[in-house]
């Protein structure tokens, strides 16, 4: 094929490709208007269409006696490794109905990852360091994202159609189902949704000493 026609074809493809899929931009704030990180947005197609997405292998690390990241969204069926980057041992556990497991005291990376085969919220803890809390959001839909420090998340490559989006945050007052919003995307229109969430106070065991700095550990 002559080079000129190849060039024209390439330009056409570049111009046309974005128009066959759209994206949803999500902005999440708290009631004071401050951007809210660690919010998970999930999108489901109203016609029941889905995307071919293979469950992957994800990582939730332990660094400076904290779970990193604090919130980790994964696609249902994914495996999660829990490497321990600290130079001390941790004992990771969860009693959440979506996944109950206990990793006995370990250092380094456990031999096998944990498979999260049920959608839902999995709350992580460490039995040695009670202040350590993390969350794994197991998404039933292949379209999901987590907001960053700027409170924004983008879900790309949405085929044209009607969708519902929901928001989840570890401290939000309302139930996830009550946050559902309908939106449409097509080749001419991306979508943007905003949520303002009322949050519960953060209540969990504290790492800083209560009263005085002495005494046993933890």
């Amino acid at each position, binding site marked *: 094929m002559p080079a000129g026609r190849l060039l024209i074809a390439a330009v056409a493809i570049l111009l046309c490709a974005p128009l066959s899929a759209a994206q949803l931009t999500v902005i999440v704030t708290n009631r004071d208007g401050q951007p809210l990180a660690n919010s998970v947005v999930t999108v489901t197609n109203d016609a029941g269409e889905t995307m071919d997405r293979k469950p992957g292998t994800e990582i939730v690390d332990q660094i400076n006696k904290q779970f990193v990241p604090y919130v980790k969204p994964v696609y249902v069926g994914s495996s999660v490794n829990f490497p321990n980057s600290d130079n001390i041992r941790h004992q990771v556990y969860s009693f959440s109905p979506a996944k109950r497991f206990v990793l006995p005291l370990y250092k380094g990376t456990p031999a096998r990852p944990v498979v999260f085969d049920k959608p839902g919220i999995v709350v992580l803890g460490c039995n040695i360091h009670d202040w350590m809390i993390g969350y794994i959001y197991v998404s039933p839909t292949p379209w999901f994202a987590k907001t960053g420090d700027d409170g924004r998340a983008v879900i790309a490559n949405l085929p044209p159609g009607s969708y519902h989006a929901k928001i989840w945050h570890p401290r939000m007052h309302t139930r996830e189902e009550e946050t559902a919003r309908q939106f449409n995307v097509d080749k001419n229109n991306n979508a943007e949704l905003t949520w303002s969430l009322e949050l519960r106070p953060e209540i969990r065991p504290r*790492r*800083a000493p209560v009263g*005085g700095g*002495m005494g046993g550990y933890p």
Partner: protein
Amino acid sequence: MSMTERRTEPVGLCFFLLLIAIAPPARSEWLMGGEAAYKYNDNLSLAQQGRDIESGNSLNLRFSPGYHFQATNYTGLTLNADLQADRNFGFTGLSQAAGGVSMDLFHKFGIGREVPWMRAGISTDWHDYANNQRDGWQFTAGISAGKRFSDHWQTTISYQFEAYRADKSVDIPALYILGIEGDAFDTDAHLLSINTVYTVNYRLSLIAGFAKHLGEVTSTTRRSSNIFDASDAITPDPVFGTDRFAYRIDANTNIFSFGISYALTGNVSLNAGYEYRDSNASHGLAYTNNIFSVNAAFRY
């Protein structure tokens, strides 16, 4: 180097070297805690009679490096060196430096933030006062148990035995008053306590506690035949004046405490507390204390 200095150095050093030798790096971690506190006590002399009551304030510094060794999924051992310095502004004889070691064994009865736990601990410290007759060893041994009942509430109950033995080698004039011995600073006592912490949010906590101190205390008086009759040890106490005497007596003390704690960071907190002590001793002797304190504490 004085005899008192020779006593403390080898014991503390050997214990700490033992810590380092037995703790494999992967199973243990270095810890560090400490605080700087300001305290006001409206009855520093623990006196009953108004003429003998002396109030005072002090600055207290404490530093405690240590090792935590997590032996199993549920049990850990913490070994600390405990260093302390107190500067009393009104009564310099009460200023002191102290050093010692402590050991805590901690056990959780299961997995999770709300399972009950238990702690057993012992400690020994040498106290070096500016007023040498108070120099001595303190020993404590205790157990405590606690539970987090919800995200907001946790409660701890404790028992501790405390013993203080003054350094008899200190050269002070021997004094026998009415045939009573002079080891007024040697005391044995038991402390029972219950404490509750209410977590308002991740930064703010409220603390309330009640304790019962049963046993010997050392109080101060001017010459008083009534008090001397009730005492089982008396010695001159120049800290509070040349006409003062320290006396040992059995007392029952109720201690009510309240506090507030604010986490500045994940490792540092500011704390304020109030303590009311109501003591009743034999022969109708009684006294009260109001103690106010503020401190900054850290733990890594």
